[in-house]
């Protein structure tokens, strides 16, 4: 192909790409700058002559300190971590075995059950949160981590199952049959032959499930009420805004630090995350 003039490439490629990157990442820069600005600079109106949006001359860690010392932020982080890990573990366990059954075993209703599980994947949390709140109260698990550990799998399992089904289908049946001929039971063949091969799929599903749990909001908002039980997204929004007063410095510090675990895991497993995400929509 013949390359066009250089300015054409700038106009049609670098310029739009630069705009996309700037637009998509600016809010995160804004979080960082806000976190580091002292209050005196932070609360200057936009038409103040000294308003300096993109830089601060006196960076400070005061907001981070007050977030960590004066709020329950550490507790929220811990809660979220425990809940996200537990929900991810349950979902992976259920999803892997269910995915195996649906992809590999021949039985009546297989197609119907597969479709049913796919449909639950499409049920949004906001459809059921009110009756669920009632049920959580009946089971007496309201305001405990169990309310979330048991409900998060409802939107994680379907997606894990679906993703694992896809993975299992790509593994040749012959591998399993060989093991069976050598005397392995079906269970042994599954645990020792199929699961190790499916590890990348399990990792993708796990990472995606963990980030979804970390991000979940409405169930955590409705099912938990005491400040020391809350997760990061709910704690930051409800406890750092008192009436009409927004503690913007600490809020942005909370948003930044609260995002770190997800960003950290994501940075290590970008490829797995993308595989999980695209796999989940391709079905």
């Amino acid at each position: 192909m013949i390359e066009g003039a250089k300015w054409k490439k700038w106009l049609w490629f670098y310029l739009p790409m630069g705009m996309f990157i700037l637009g998509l990442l600016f809010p995160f820069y804004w979080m960082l700058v806000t976190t580091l600005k002292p209050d005196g600079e932070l609360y200057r109106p936009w038409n103040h002559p000294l308003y300096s949006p993109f830089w601060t001359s006196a960076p400070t860690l005061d907001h981070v300190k007050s977030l960590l010392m004066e709020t329950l932020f550490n507790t929220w982080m811990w809660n979220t971590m425990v809940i996200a890990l537990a929900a991810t573990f349950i979902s992976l366990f259920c999803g892997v075995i269910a995915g195996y059954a649906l992809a590999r075993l021949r039985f009546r209703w297989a197609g119907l059950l597969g479709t049913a599980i796919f449909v639950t994947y499409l049920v949004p949390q906001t459809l059921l949160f009110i009756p669920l709140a009632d049920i959580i109260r009946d089971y007496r698990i309201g305001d405990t981590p169990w309310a979330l550990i048991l409900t998060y799998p409802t939107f994680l399992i379907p997606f894990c199952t679906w993703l694992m089904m896809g993975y299992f289908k790509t593994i040749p049946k012959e591998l399993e049959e060989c093991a069976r001929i050598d005397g392995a039971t079906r269970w042994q063949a599954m645990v020792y032959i199929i699961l190790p091969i499916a590890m990348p799929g399990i990792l993708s599903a796990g990472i995606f499930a963990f980030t979804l749990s970390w991000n979940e909001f409405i169930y955590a908002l409705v099912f938990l009420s005491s400040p020391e039980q809350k997760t990061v997204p709910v704690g930051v929004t409800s406890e750092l805004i008192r009436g009409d007063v927004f503690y913007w410095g600490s809020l942005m510090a909370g948003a930044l630090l609260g995002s770190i675990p997800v960003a950290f895991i994501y940075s290590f497993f970008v490829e797995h995350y993308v595989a999980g995400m695209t796999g989940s929509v391709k079905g």
Partner: protein
Amino acid sequence: MLEREGALAFWLLVPTLALLTLFIAYPFVRGVWLSLTNSVVGVPGDFVGLKNFVKLWNDSIFRTAALNTFVYTGVTTVFKLALGLWLALLLNRHFRGKAWVRAFILLPFIIPTVLSTLAWKWMFDPTFSVFNWLFWKLSIINSRVNWLGDPDLAMASIMAVNVWRGVPFYAISLLAGLQTINQDLHEAAAIDGARPWQRFRHVTWPLLLPVTMVVVLFSVIQTFADFQLVYVLTGGGPANATHLFATYAYQIGIGTGLLSEGAAISLAMFPALLLVVVFQLWYIRKVENR
């Protein structure tokens, strides 16, 4: 043999089916029942038939919320698809630092929505808004713009944040679709004299359509049932003008404690969601059977 496979399948599926029955099927049935009673928090209530739905029909805030939800879903989906496709096409080229760009671009999608939305709320703050400063410096405005204070402007601002969050998802999913398209097809079309636009229109687009459809339908469901953005940015205000189904259900069901009415508002989403799901299942089947 078949018998034993059936038994094994049963045990492997039990945990999944138990959790989904307990926390999806049962709540759904219970939600339908709840919406037909006059239950409030702590009081089971009595059967009242369709009274809650009749009440909603005559409720002007509910009508606004319904209209908002459809407009919100429609407008943001168009923008997310257009911008997402554009970004996917840009990312599908070869350039230095591509892996980095792709990794960073997904950040709006992976960072907890509520937390990034708080940053947007701060950027929209009437007194300290960076947008006001920017547009003022560019001489586009000369007095302050109250981004979240005016009903129409607030809705537009919420949509902008939704598009911001959704574009990376569209772009990366569509990019995955683009990468499965055989380059030979493009070269063959180019040799036959097809212009870039023609190549996109007649080669890329038809092959990308199945992935696009699934991504769009999936995103439509999520957007239609959205809660977090409105909850954080406006809380449904000013004067209940920016509610969506979900936020209004929350305000009535949890905020005011009118469980039955809240459940009815949530369930009002169901017919539209069902339609999308049925269409999606039909479409997937059609593509698979081709």
